[in-house]
């Protein structure tokens, strides 16, 4: 881990620690989505196990969009981003620091949401519960790595807050599909989630590598 990455990471974590904007807004938003889904689908028994994996993933996805937009909007104020462009470090370090920070925030939200989720959906996990410790971070990483990248990509466009979900969700969908299938497999115990976990890991490796390679291009796009 290099010093530039570390500096960026500490800075992002410190800003969040002081304001708690991202985590609070994400947490409340995800809670709203979970409640909305349980009101509209009346989850009970086996049915709740079937849908809860999907609800958890979709709630995280919607909630994280607000935080991802904020991540770069902060840098625009007072032309901080222009200063970053002139800094003699590679943009990919700043990118990785933002991904790590956002990964931490979204994981925090998932941890805080988990008990609420178990209560509302009356969940009894039938598969290997410990596999969730693999699936959720992999899925969150896919979301946050692509999300941070596309948030930076859409930063200079009109309606950037609107644009981010429009370009992020289609690219994220294969990962979402793998994540939902894997969690459903774990909750219901009906099938082996291994193939979906492998797909998710492959997706993470491919897209994270491409993001790191192309980040300097979009940071210095002008």
């Amino acid at each position, binding site marked *: 881990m290099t010093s530039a990455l570390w500096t960026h990471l500490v800075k992002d974590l410190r800003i969040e620690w002081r304001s708690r904007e991202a985590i609070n807004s994400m947490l409340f938003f995800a809670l709203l989505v979970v409640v909305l889904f349980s009101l509209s689908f009346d989850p009970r028994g086996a049915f709740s196990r079937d849908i809860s994996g999907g609800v958890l993933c979709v709630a995280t996805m919607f909630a994280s969009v607000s935080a991802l937009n904020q991540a770069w909007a902060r840098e625009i104020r007072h032309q901080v981003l222009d200063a970053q462009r002139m800094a003699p470090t590679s943009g990919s370090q700043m990118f990785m620091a933002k991904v790590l920070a956002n990964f931490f925030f979204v994981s925090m939200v998932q941890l805080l949401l988990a008990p609420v989720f178990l209560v509302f959906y009356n969940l009894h996990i039938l598969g290997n519960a410990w596999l969730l410790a693999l699936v959720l971070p992999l899925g969150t990483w896919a979301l946050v790595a692509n999300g941070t990248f*596309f948030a930076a*990509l*859409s930063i*200079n*466009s*009109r*309606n950037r807050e*609107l*644009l981010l979900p*429009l*370009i992020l*969700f*289609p*690219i994220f*969908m*294969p990962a979402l*599909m793998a994540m939902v299938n894997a969690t459903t497999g774990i909750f219901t115990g009906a099938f082996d989630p291994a193939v979906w976990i492998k797909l998710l890991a492959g*997706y993470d490796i*491919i*897209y994270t590598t*491409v993001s790191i390679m*192309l980040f300097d*291009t*979009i940071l210095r*796009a*002008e």
Partner: protein
Amino acid sequence: MRKILLGLFAAMTTVLMVWGFHLAVNAPAEMMQGDAYRIIFYHVPSAMVAFLFFAVSMAGSIGYLAYREKNPTRALAWDGWAVAGAEVGVVFCTVVLVTGPLWGYRAWGIWWAWDARLTTTLLLWLIYVSYLLLRRFAGGSQMRTSSAVLGIFGGIAVPIVYISNRIPGQHPGPVFGGDSSSGMAPEILRPFLGNILAWLCWGLVVLILRHRLELKQQAAAARDAEQALNA
């Protein structure tokens, strides 16, 4: 000269299309499905052309990024291929997504199944629609760079879709190079190949026209910018 060549190519394509239609209508009915199978003469070639043009779009995106600083004129031509490939590819992919359910309703009794192949083709369509949306939304000089990057991200999804085509599901298995029951009778194979050729040529005509249009639009935009500076 180029115009004449393109006109000749378009005329040849028209002949091919008429011939392909003739072959498709007059091919013998299939043993299990009767006439319903004839959708294969449109559905499969459209899917092939759509995938090919998404690859063209990705190549255009890579070319744009490669020449962006060294040779801006050449980079703009590559960008033209990127947008033309994505737009025409989306049209052909739409044809696939429309003709598929028509056949599915007849053969399966349902319009749509959330099978791996159908889902991934739909995802591909969504990804390239989002690419076209980005080109609309993102203004200024960065639009081409941003969309080229998204074009590469989208192109990476194509092999994932291709691999999932070989995962068994509800969609008919690979007709060629699959198991021992795959393959086609020669009297159906000939119309099938003829239609692939016809639709490929038709796609190329539209692609080339769209590319020329994009180059003209780029030139017009550059002229307008220059006039605004001199005014």
